[in-house]
């Protein structure tokens, strides 16, 4: 018995000799493939090697959405007293020249709320849904074609907007939520900025936006002393932004320089006096019944901090922001007006 039987191979028909034509075809095919590989290789050739960092083109700011200041002597800040946020907002805006002074027909308005935590509205840790609804409605009535609502909260965004009632308020008034997702963030390097260098910001929320209104509650805050209009802008940062707590005043001042809003609404109807900025208990809240409206976030915050029993000197970021030209703590220079939406009792 043989180990190896050559018979089957012998029985097979011998392959035909390669014709010259077929050989040339093979040669041509191999040549084309080799040329293609070589071309691709050369065209992708990277003589330097990778850089240490990928440098995307960075934004300089998120934009200047200010409207021209009213003629000298007209009020540029309104202090409104009351309990009904919708009425207070309406009265405050009326005192500043009406909604038409801020929002024109066809505008796309971005409402920057504070939706930081998945806490019910009653706990006051987030922008009041009634205020959001009132502002969104006013924008619509002033002719805004689109109203967007955005924040990059601390807890997961869907829960924050739903639990805080902001999603319902937006739906009810035809405003669209812009929830943060990675594609909406791009790097920003603030000119002369020390902290905001190549840092991801929520720029995608600003696509097509022509006006920006910030809606912030007044809250106690251990690190920043108080969280109001300026601190609310922290919610436009992405990344592991908490590293900036090492220089909280510096970052808040830079946030003011990063964005110039059209109008800032600082809502002190209910103020979180203790355990901020999360709160968590009704006993952390006080009914202060005040709302400040101004295009100047430094000015609203300089007044708002008083609701917490503190002074502007307790907030170093106000001086820093003022020095950076963000706004003024000299509120009197804005010709403030005071409005009452409810007749004083007694």
């Amino acid at each position, binding site marked *: 018995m043989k180990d190896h039987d050559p018979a089957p191979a012998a029985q097979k028909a011998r392959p035909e000799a390669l014709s010259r034509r077929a050989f040339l075809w093979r040669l041509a095919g191999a040549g084309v493939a080799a040329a293609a590989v070589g071309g691709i290789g050369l065209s992708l050739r990277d003589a330097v090697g990778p850089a240490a960092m990928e440098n995307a083109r960075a934004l300089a700011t998120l934009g200047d959405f200010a409207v021209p200041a009213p003629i000298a002597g007209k009020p540029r800040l309104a202090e409104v007293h009351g309990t009904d946020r919708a009425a207070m907002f309406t009265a405050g805006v009326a005192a500043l020249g009406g909604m038409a002074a801020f929002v024109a027909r066809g505008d796309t308005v971005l409402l920057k709320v504070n939706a930081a*935590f*998945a*806490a*019910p509205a009653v706990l006051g840790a987030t922008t009041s849904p009634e205020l959001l609804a009132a502002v969104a409605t006013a924008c619509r009535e002033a002719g805004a074609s689109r109203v967007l609502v955005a924040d990059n909260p*601390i*807890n*997961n*965004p*869907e*829960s924050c907007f*739903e*639990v805080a009632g902001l999603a319902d308020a937006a739906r009810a008034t035809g405003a669209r939520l812009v*929830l*943060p*997702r*990675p*594609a909406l963030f791009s790097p920003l390097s603030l000119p002369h900025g*020390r902290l905001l260098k190549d840092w991801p910001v929520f720029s995608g929320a600003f696509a097509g936006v022509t006006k920006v209104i910030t809606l912030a509650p007044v809250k106690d*805050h*251990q*690190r920043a002393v108080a969280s109001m209009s300026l601190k609310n802008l922290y919610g436009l940062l992405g990344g*592991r932004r*908490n*590293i900036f*707590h*090492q*220089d*909280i*005043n*510096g970052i808040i001042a830079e946030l003011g320089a990063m964005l110039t809003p059209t109008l800032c609404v600082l809502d002190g109807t209910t103020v979180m006096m*203790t*355990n901020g*900025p*999360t*709160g*968590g*208990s009704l*006993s*952390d809240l006080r009914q202060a019944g005040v709302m400040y409206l101004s295009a100047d976030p430094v000015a609203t915050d300089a007044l708002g901090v008083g609701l917490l029993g503190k002074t502007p*000197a307790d907030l*170093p*970021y106000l*001086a*820093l922001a003022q*020095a950076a030209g963000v706004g003024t703590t000299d509120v009197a220079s804005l010709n403030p007006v005071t409005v009452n939406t409810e007749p004083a009792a007694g």
Partner: protein
Amino acid sequence: MRIVVARRISQAFFVLLFLWFCLVATVGDAFWQLRGWPINWILSLDPLTALGVVLTTRTLYAPLLWAVLVLAATFFLGRFFCGFACPLGALNQLAGWLTRRRLPTAARVADNAPGKARGVKYVLLAFFLGAAALGSLQTGLLDPLPLVFRSVNLAVLPLVDPGRFGIHGEGRFYDGAWVFGLILLAILCANAWRPRFFCRYLCPLGALFGLAVRFTPWRIGKADAKACGTCRRCEEYCEGGCRPSGELVLSECVLCMNCLDACPTGRIGFAARPSACGERALPDLSRRGVLAALAAGALAAPLWRVGGASALGRDPALIRPPGSLDEERFLARCIRCGQCMRVCPSAVIQPAVTAAGAAGLWTPTLNYRLGRAGCLQNCIACGQVCPTAAIRPFPLDEKLGRGQYAAAGPLRLGTAFVDRTRCLPWAMGRPCIVCQEVCPVSPKAITVGTVLEPVPGGAVSVSDAKGAALTLAGAPVTGRNLGSGDYFLRGAGLSDDTARRIVSHSGANLALEKPLPDLGQGRRAEIVVRLQQPHVDPTRCVGCGMCEHECPVSGLRAIRVTSENESRSGPGRMLA
């Protein structure tokens, strides 16, 4: 309508229902979100889960009564669940059909012949039941319903989560997701080799059904033995591989009804008569193999206990979701279906790879780095969706310790510990206190102690002072933003009360909030930083992990939650 068409409709219905229930396991009240959808219904139909939980707990959690209904129907009809309802079975059948379309008839028939390997699933079942009898529920590892829910919840859906039209705007991460994905892929690909590979050889639920069909009054069978040719058409698409042309292996018939549909003579039917060519109840089974597996399972459970992974040796990083039972009772119920992990709005519930020991593979544990937030204060979703009440359906008042639960206090998952060797204010002299800021408890479980600490390079001598405006002998080199409000100037050797906040700084010039007290001769001073250092109050901390999630020390966090003081293990509490 032909019976196979009815079967296909039923299978499609169950697959779509299954996918829908996975999709709507999303907290919210839109129609495609949780609202009131019975997302556990398919899991509740599982008699293996029910039997396992009965063995481990001697009780049957009410929703699992559905499984009793399925088992009762199986006693009459056979493995209708495998053929008509099981979503994994349907996916296997579809994958087999797609990959085997071009095979010749003879090859198909050969692949459907019964063989000894069918016994493997009975051996696996014996192992699982042995372990369950001694308190360790492992069925979920291979039980097709938890398996397919786990695979889709933790591997398939996360692939489509991110993006504007995704289910969630941001991606969700699941520890070890690749394993779930590849296991599912392997199960589906195995159908190319043998149709319904998983169902025939591995499925412990199929084995349980196989044991239950012995007395079915109605069954598949041949009407008469004679005059049946050799066409074997009945076996060409026989999903169970139960040999309808010859001696029928009763336990293997999954009621796919393909034989009945294919027989050109109409000799095969579903009727109350024995099959004409004979029947046998089970495939060739190694009785010794089954007994050995039973013994191995029965031994594994106490051996796991000896390992101590669920008692004294517990991994402190094992943090169960709120409302979880104590570890022993938890492992007697959890089927690792991944429902809690999918529904968790912050995706903080993760499959444990090593944290829960071998007996707790893929059971839920909280990972505050992978999640999108800590455990949300106002959320009770995980307890509502757990199909076996390993996580009890707890009310919000219980979680927060309100109302009738005020005396018991809130549900605690563990305790946060500050790592003072990593914490910025404790170890690096830099202000931070993010953990205190995000602590959602009122009053906060993290308190702060304020200290003034000298800044390296901050020893200065004052050469000139005009009120609060100072000129230093040289510009201090500290690398800090001295005018940021966090820095103070203190006379050397003087008390903290004399420190004055620096309000602006430029080169060797400092502006202070208020003038310094007289420093006397030498006029030496030091720049100090005001630090708020976190302290955890363990009586208030609920272990929600918000602090750990937000800690800017992003690698190994400077504040971390471990399981000490968790509510679910009374004797394991930390505080006296």
